[in-house]
């Protein structure tokens, strides 16, 4: 550990400010709380929001897991892990079950989360209404007065164009039957995992400088139509590595002839699953 930095890089005053924003966000589930985002030593779009949240809530006893698209070993995940090893001397784990704090980009782990765990999402565009109304003062009012009907326009456009709701990720949800929320670009496959999750779910948008949260055991409902209900995607086949049919699968092209295989997006889950299914 380098002594020239405060624990977990951020100074204590900044952490306090961010923690206050987190508390407010937890108190108003799904509401976007503005916060004084700090400059972090990585570019916007690489998780500056998530990393500030993690830095504010992490303690010396935490076990940190970082995933990117479900993977524990991509560049983004590894550099964030290195960052916290360097600045906080923190224990790193890949095990979802033993991790106390998980920072993620674009996925929720397949292994069910537990009470006491914190999941930190990296969010590029926090405003779900941006597609309908680009003006921030207007979206504020729409949130304030619960004018969310037009959000269905996006889903309508999907059905009109593709015959079904084609939105596959960043699928809008209502939190605690009140605020409309963007679940960050997780696949809609993960949306049901938000519903009444025992874990604390925190969302940080670094560029937009906003924090929002879902406290444990909160109702989270995906938008849909009566005649086009919310549906999960299905795959024709199982994971080529572990054989799972109960997880989110990525399609991978393995050679120049376009041969495709399906593989679990959650690498840790896949490894465990493969280990347990093979004698």
């Amino acid at each position: 550990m380098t002594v020239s930095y405060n624990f977990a890089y951020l100074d204590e005053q900044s952490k306090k400010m961010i923690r206050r924003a987190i508390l407010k966000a937890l108190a108003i589930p799904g509401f976007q709380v503005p916060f004084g985002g700090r400059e972090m030593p990585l570019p916007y779009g690489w998780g500056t929001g998530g990393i500030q949240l993690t830095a504010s809530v992490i303690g010396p006893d935490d076990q940190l897991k970082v995933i990117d698209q479900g993977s524990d070993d991509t560049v983004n995940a590894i550099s964030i892990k290195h960052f916290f090893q360097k600045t906080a001397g923190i224990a790193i784990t890949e095990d979802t079950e033993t991790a106390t704090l998980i920072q993620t980009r674009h996925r929720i782990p397949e292994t069910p989360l537990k009470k006491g765990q914190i999941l930190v999402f990296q969010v590029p565009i926090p405003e779900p209404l941006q597609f309908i109304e680009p003006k921030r003062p207007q979206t504020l009012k729409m949130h304030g007065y619960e004018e969310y009907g037009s959000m269905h326009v996006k889903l309508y456009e999907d059905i009109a164009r593709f015959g079904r709701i084609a939105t596959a990720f960043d699928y809008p949800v209502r939190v605690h039957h009140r605020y409309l929320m963007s679940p960050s670009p997780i696949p809609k496959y993960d949306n049901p995992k938000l519903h009444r999750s025992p874990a604390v779910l925190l969302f940080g948008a670094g560029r937009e400088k906003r924090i929002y949260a879902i406290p444990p055991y909160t109702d989270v409902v995906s938008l849909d139509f009566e005649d086009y209900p919310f549906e999960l995607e299905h795959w024709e086949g199982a994971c080529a590595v572990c054989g799972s049919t109960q997880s989110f699968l990525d399609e991978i092209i393995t050679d120049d002839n376009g041969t495709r295989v399906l593989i679990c997006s959650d690498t840790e889950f896949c490894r465990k699953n493969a280990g347990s299914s093979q004698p």
Partner: protein
Amino acid sequence: MTPVADLNPPPLLKVAHLCKFFGRHMGCHDISFEVCPGEVIGVVGESGSGKSTLLNCIAGRIRPSNGSVWFRTPDGMEDLCRCDEARMRRIIRTRTGYVTQHASQGLKMHISAGGNIGEKLMAAGTRHYGKIREAALMWLDKVEIDPGRIDDLPSTFSGGMQQRLQIAANLVTAPEILLMDEPTSGLDVSVQARLIDVLRKLVFSLNLSMILVTHDLAVARLLCHRLYVMKQGEIVESGLSDQILDDPRKPYTQLLVSSVLKP
């Protein structure tokens, strides 16, 4: 056009002593009038006379500096300038429509024609795709747009079609009053004639009220039962359309009427 109205209908909308100042500049001053169900009111005057400011105040888009905009709701007459903003937005959203001069401001150009018509329905709580689709098709037909174009973007439509689409998108939730800011300017005359024809039919069949802001007196005569002539933020003369256009009294109205080219 032949107006439909009872002898003493209660007003749908009542504007009382409405004022709007932009700093020291007066947008409109001490404007009072009533609109009855099924009545089409024209506000005429040259650019900068405060017509659009007045319309925007009624539409809740600008907060008036003073005065009231009473709107008849099932709960009685409500002053949009006094009730809380959530209530005001609800009344505006469900009971009025607003057609802008430029369709690009009133429509979402990156959303299909059907989506534009459906938006107000969805905002009002409709959650059934099939029903939204059905309503969109019906309204396209009513405003004389080929229902086959339901999934096309408004940007692929002509100016006249965009204006008619805007009208359909506003009327789908059956508002009682349509506010229109120069809907026909910028369209060539044959396209304009079609728009006017569509509007006339809709007003007649839906017993719709309208406030039409225009500087085109020919359009005003064809569509409006009554006219208000505005100059420098104030109403200088008002009356039935034929009274204003055939027997103008005030110097400004006489100037306005005599300045029109007659083909």
